[in-house]
Each structure stands twice: as C-alpha cells, then as structure tokens.
C-alpha cells in the first residue's frame, strides 16, 4: 500500500478493485486503438422492388418485356473498390454458385465505384424473355469486383436471383 495514513482512510480491497478496473479499461482502450480497420471484409448484393424496397417482387411478366427492379450493392472490403453487376437470364440448371458465375450470356452490366462501408441502390429496367421452352426463369445478378493488382474482373461469389414466370 502507498502509505500507512492512507491505509486508514481508503480500504485496501476497494483500492485494489478500482485499480483492476482501471487496468482492464486501459487494456480495452489499447486493443480498440490498435484493432484492424476491417476484421472481416465482405461485399453484398441485393435485389429490391421498383420502389427500392424489400418484397412485392413481380411474379410474372410477358415474354420480351422489360422489368423494373432496384439493385443494392455494398462494399465492406476495407478499401474503395470498383464493382460491376452482371445480369443474365438463367434456369434452375444454370444458376451461379459461390465459386462459379452462371454460364449464361451477359445481357446487361452496370459499373460503380464504392468507398469503404458505402452502399448504393439504383433502380433499373432489365429485359426478360424465355430461355428455350422454360417458362419459369431466374433473373440472375452477379457481383464482380476489379482486382487492381492483376487488372482483371473477379467474381466475388455473391449473387442474387429472382424466379419469374414468363407468359407468351
């Protein structure tokens, strides 16, 4: 203890508790100061309805028409990045997965540059038509990011799709 006179006034156990709290607070503060800017980088893509809200998606449309939707993209990679959203019409058998994009041809592409922790919603219209004899198709939106080290577009493994019935 610091001094005998102090012992008489400030209880030793109370002092030890206060000291322990200050050590924990200090360690926590240092950990927060030195923590990495982004602990788990990720990107996100979402599909919204034409009012840029979740739900009330169209369920059917006419072959050859265009459909108004809204696309949501978010960047939490820890740095600004250049994205492209690729639109394809696929079927059950040609959907993308987390490693491979859909093999179907690209119909529309949108590009955007997003800062870290930035999100963007943009309304758009996409063409819809039947694929072969299939009447139930999937509108597929894939998220690609530009790798500035290798100078090429890389599939992020993020995609979203909307099933729709196409009437002739």
């Amino acid at each position, binding site marked *: *203890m*610091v*001094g005998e*006179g*102090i012992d008489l*006034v*400030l209880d030793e156990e109370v*002092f030890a508790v*206060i*000291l322990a709290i*200050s*050590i924990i*607070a*200090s360690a926590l*503060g*240092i950990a927060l*100061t*030195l923590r990495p800017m982004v602990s788990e*980088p990720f990107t996100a893509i979402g599909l919204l309805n034409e009012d840029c809200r979740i739900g009330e998606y169209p369920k059917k449309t006419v072959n050859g028409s265009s459909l108004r939707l809204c696309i949501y993209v978010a960047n939490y990679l820890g*740095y*600004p*990045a*250049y994205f492209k959203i690729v639109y394809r019409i696929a079927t059950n058998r040609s959907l993308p997965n987390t*490693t*491979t*994009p859909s093999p179907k041809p690209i119909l529309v592409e*949108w*590009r*955007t*540059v*997003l*800062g*870290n922790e*930035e999100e*963007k919603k943009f309304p758009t219209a996409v063409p819809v038509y039947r694929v072969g004899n299939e009447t139930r198709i999937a509108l597929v939106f894939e998220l*690609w*990011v*530009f*790798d*500035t*080290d*290798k*100078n*090429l*577009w*890389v*599939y*992020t*493994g993020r995609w979203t799709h909307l099933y729709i019935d196409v009437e002739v």
Partner: protein
Amino acid sequence: MSSTSFAVAMLTLVLLSVSHFFAVDSKLSDVDIRIADILDKAKNLYMKGVNVTDVVRKLDEVVELYECGDIDRARDIFNDTEVEVLELEKIADNVYRSIVISKAITIAFLVSIPVAVYYFLPRVYLYIWFKLRRRWLVRG
C-alpha cells in the same frame, strides 16, 4: 484414386479455402483500366488514412457518365480526379505520420491511466477526506 490426382484434388481444396474470389473475367475496356489505375492510388491513400470520399464519388460519376455516353464530361471529371489524387499524394505521408503519432499519444495516455490511479487516487482521496473534515473537532 492415384496419388497425383489426390494431390491435385488437395491442392484445389487448399486454393479454394484460401481464396476469396474465384472466377475471373479478363475482358477489359480502356475505361476499366484507367479507373482502376486511379482507384488503386485512392486505395493506397485510404490505407494511409487520407479522406478519399470525394475521389470515389467523382470516379463513380465518371463511370455513370461513361455508361450514359457523355464521354466529354466523363473525361473532364476524370482529369479533375487525377489532379486531386496527385494533390492528395503530396499530403499522404504527413497524414499517415499524424495518425501514427495520435495513436501513439492515445496509447501512452491509456497506459498511464492505471499508473496514475495507483499513484494519485490514494493521495487525492486522502486530501479530499481531510478537506471535508477540517472543521471537525476531536473530543477526548
């Protein structure tokens, strides 16, 4: 399964587990490369703690204008952005240094808290204790 194909399968699994992204598209436009070049510089500036919000916003505007076919305006804004990035590169080292110094000061302050509590708390407490009781009379 032969040992070679097993090794290939294992290598593929390892590569899949360590890689974030998989499929690539090597088809690039000139605009992609120019945007990516500036964005790479902006990324380095951001890592040094420089505010690149304006650069990112302008690059996004360039992409949007280019997609709408307004090439001249896109080129003007792109040139502006290039100049802005050059200006930011000049101050980047100073910004990085000031961030490192402010972090060091913060850590030194946080480290000093328990030391200060250990040294000053009993003394301050004693001082206040006596101050509050200075008018007290002790009767025998």
